[in-house]
């Protein structure tokens, strides 16, 4: 077995004395879709924020491609090719759609036009609204823009924090379709979702996070079929 692309070992993170993550270990292999499911406040977002360097790691290590990245600045981690689509989309409302894409490629020095075209091909709606301020887009369009913006850095790993949050069911379907497309393009994806059903369906590997500790782990299908997971996260009764 090859070494995982991203390896989290015994990760502990605390906010002002409160431990949000109490030592979790996750492995993400190249080309996989890995999903992290769990209830509100379980520490899903914290995990992603720790990987991207936004919150300090208290204990444990995060290795990417064999190099320790925990303790690095967010800039360094982005430069490595680990990009995040943050929760709540967080597009820059005062920048145009095109500028949002350009700022996604902020660290790149090479030509980015081909990448802009690629994003527009994935999301034709964005091209139509190229000159519009991002703040005027609908929620679904903003989510597409947030994904497009992250793609501009040509990520090796794309981390997505609750991409379906607050979106209409049809739009959610589009978002998950896009995730699969990106996966087909060879991007490794680490997906955090409350919409466990949809997430597990596309995941190669899945982890359940419960108040800072890891619960079950398995393939997406295994967890989808597990009674306890069904009851706790899928809102379905264990016995049919």
């Amino acid at each position, binding site marked *: 077995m090859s070494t995982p692309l991203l390896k989290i070992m015994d990760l502990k993170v605390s906010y002002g004395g409160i431990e949000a993550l109490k030592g979790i270990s996750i492995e993400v292999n190249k080309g996989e879709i890995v999903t992290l499911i769990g209830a509100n406040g379980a520490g899903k977002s914290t995990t992603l924020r720790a990987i991207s360097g936004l919150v300090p790691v208290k204990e444990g290590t995060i290795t990417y491609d064999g190099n320790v990245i925990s303790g690095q600045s967010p*800039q360094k981690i982005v430069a490595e090719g680990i*990009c995040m689509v943050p929760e709540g989309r967080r597009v820059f409302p005062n920048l145009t759609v095109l*500028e949002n894409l350009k700022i996604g490629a902020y660290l790149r020095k090479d030509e980015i036009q081909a990448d802009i075209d690629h994003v527009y091909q994935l999301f034709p709606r964005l091209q139509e609204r190229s000159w519009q301020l991002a703040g005027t887009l609908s929620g679904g369009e903003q989510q597409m823009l947030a994904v497009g913006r992250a793609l501009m850095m040509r990520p090796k790993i794309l981390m997505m924090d609750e991409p379906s949050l607050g979106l209409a069911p049809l739009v959610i379907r589009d978002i998950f379709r896009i995730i699969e497309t990106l996966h087909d393009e060879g991007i490794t994806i680490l997906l955090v979702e409350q919409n466990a059903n949809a997430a597990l369906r596309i995941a190669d590997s899945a982890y359940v996070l419960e108040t800072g500790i890891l619960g079950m782990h398995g393939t997406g299908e295994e967890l989808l079929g597990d009674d306890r997971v069904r009851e706790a996260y899928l809102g379905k009764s264990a016995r049919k």
Partner: protein
Amino acid sequence: MWNTVFPYLLSGISVGGQYALIAIGYTMVYGILRLINFAHGDVFMVAGIVMVYVVSSGVPLWLSILLVLLITSLIGFLIERVAYKPLRTAPRMSVMISAIGVSYTLQNLVLYITGGLNQIYPTIPWISGSVTIGSATTKMVTLVTPVLTIILVVALVQLINHTKIGMAMRAVSKDFETSQLMGIKINSVISVTFVIGSFLAAVGSILYFTNYTTVIQTSGAMPGLKAFVAAVFGGIGSIPGAVIGAFIIGIMENIIKGLDVILFKSGVIKAPLGLATFSDAFTFALLIVILVFKPTGLFGEKVTDKV
């Protein structure tokens, strides 16, 4: 009538331009850090003092001007690094108190160096000469100021709207964390903001002190306060707002200063009323009135804090 008003209007436009150059520093720093940089007026004053000392040490005038711009920009950069950066995650009120501390440190430092004596500002021949236009005789600087201000503002707006660093500044002003996720170095962007603000204040100081001829440690207080009012008046955070606000305040202030003369000459009053005394009070009264009707200022955006 017009001949009486014109000289006041002209000096109003000029003072307005000088206020504008200071006000941009307030509004840009607020835009990014949500901080009222109380030390900004003193940076303006220090630029004046630096000019006095550099010129008196025998440095040629053109080089002195460049040095003043450079040193003031550097001072702005250092103030941010020393007094504000360590407080990045502290409550906003702490940073504000730090700014007040910097303000008094600069004033006391200048008091120490100068002994509290008025320093004669060097004469810059290119802008100190007299010109007569119509009914007004004034220094060349009165004409140079608005032109230079507008050129600098246009350049700044281009920088902000059409360059990579400008785009980063706009992004950082909205969202620190997401900007970091784009690989933007927040601290560098903030430094650039302080450097630009201080540079413009230095340009403003050269124009302002050429007109007023002396510098003392408190010289930054009034123009700083007026520029701050201009920035709030225009809608703090907005650069065009600050510039327009500054011109309006400069013009209003000077018209009030000349109101006695204007009214007397047009026969409305028989004896001077001493209205000029109220020109500063008027500036602030105007601010209050505007804020009552438009709390966010002329061009201010309504900020809805997300929960």
